[in-house]
């Protein structure tokens, strides 16, 4: 009973905050509601016996990534005019309706394919750090290494993108001998 109650509270809050994230005008409030949404998702992960993923969700997502977002929002300090969404209400409604149709489609598909499936019986330590670590370092070793490479590439890429462009000499200033 308690599980069901917790699930419905968390799921409702999560969905409401997600909708607020994509509808509110101010990017700071968007980011804050997204943080609450991610926290609720961490709760849902914990309910699904994924304790370690839940901890990572709070630390990495709600912590690091969203702080990065908020930092950039503050750094850019956008004007009111810059964050205004314009009026094209009709196309936006149309797009939302198409997405709603997609959601209904997803629901029908999911309902038909796994309507009455129940959770498997799992042991007490399912989703513990030990079991997950063993999976990561045996069956998922190659993806794990590839991911580390991806992170390195991302770090290098970010530095390369945000660096100020090199002050190349203007064509007129170049001496003829350097061509």
């Amino acid at each position, binding site marked *: 009973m308690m599980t069901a109650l917790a*699930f419905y509270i968390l799921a409702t809050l999560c969905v409401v905050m997600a909708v607020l994230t994509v509808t509110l005008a101010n990017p700071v409030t968007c980011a804050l509601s997204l943080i609450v949404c991610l926290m609720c998702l961490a709760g849902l992960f914990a309910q699904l016996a994924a304790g370690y993923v839940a901890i990572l969700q709070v630390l990495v997502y709600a912590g690091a990534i969203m702080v990065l977002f908020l930092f950039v929002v503050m750094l850019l300090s956008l004007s009111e005019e810059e964050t205004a969404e314009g009026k094209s209400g009709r196309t936006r409604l149309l797009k*939302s309706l198409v997405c709603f149709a997609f959601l209904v489609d997803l629901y029908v598909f999911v309902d038909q394919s796994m309507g009455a499936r129940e959770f498997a019986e799992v042991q007490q330590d399912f989703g513990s750090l030990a079991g*997950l670590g063993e999976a990561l370092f045996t069956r*998922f070793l190659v993806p794990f290494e590839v991911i580390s490479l991806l992170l390195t590439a991302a770090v290098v890429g970010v530095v390369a993108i945000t660096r100020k462009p090199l002050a190349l000499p203007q064509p007129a200033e170049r001496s003829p001998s350097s061509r």
Partner: protein
Amino acid sequence: MNPTPIHYVIVSAILFTTGIVGVLTRRNMLVVLMAIELMLNGANLAFVAFSRMHGQLDGQAVAIFVMTVAAAEAAIGLAIVVQIFRQRGTVRVDETTLLKG
């Protein structure tokens, strides 16, 4: 009524669709990036729910990978947004159409 796998998957579908709506309708690049995070999280919830449904840890491992990719994506995306703002003074999606042809 106790939640079954389909409940979690439906929540994940709603989150994913909300993310798509955000990507399609918002004009602020930062909010578009946040909507992409929302989509990735919806996928993550589905992974973890299926992992629990089958009693296997693979889904949770993939969820961790998705989280890592999301971190890399956010870092690169925000770097690009900052650089666009520096050079063009705007973060509106409909005003950065240089590659549109």
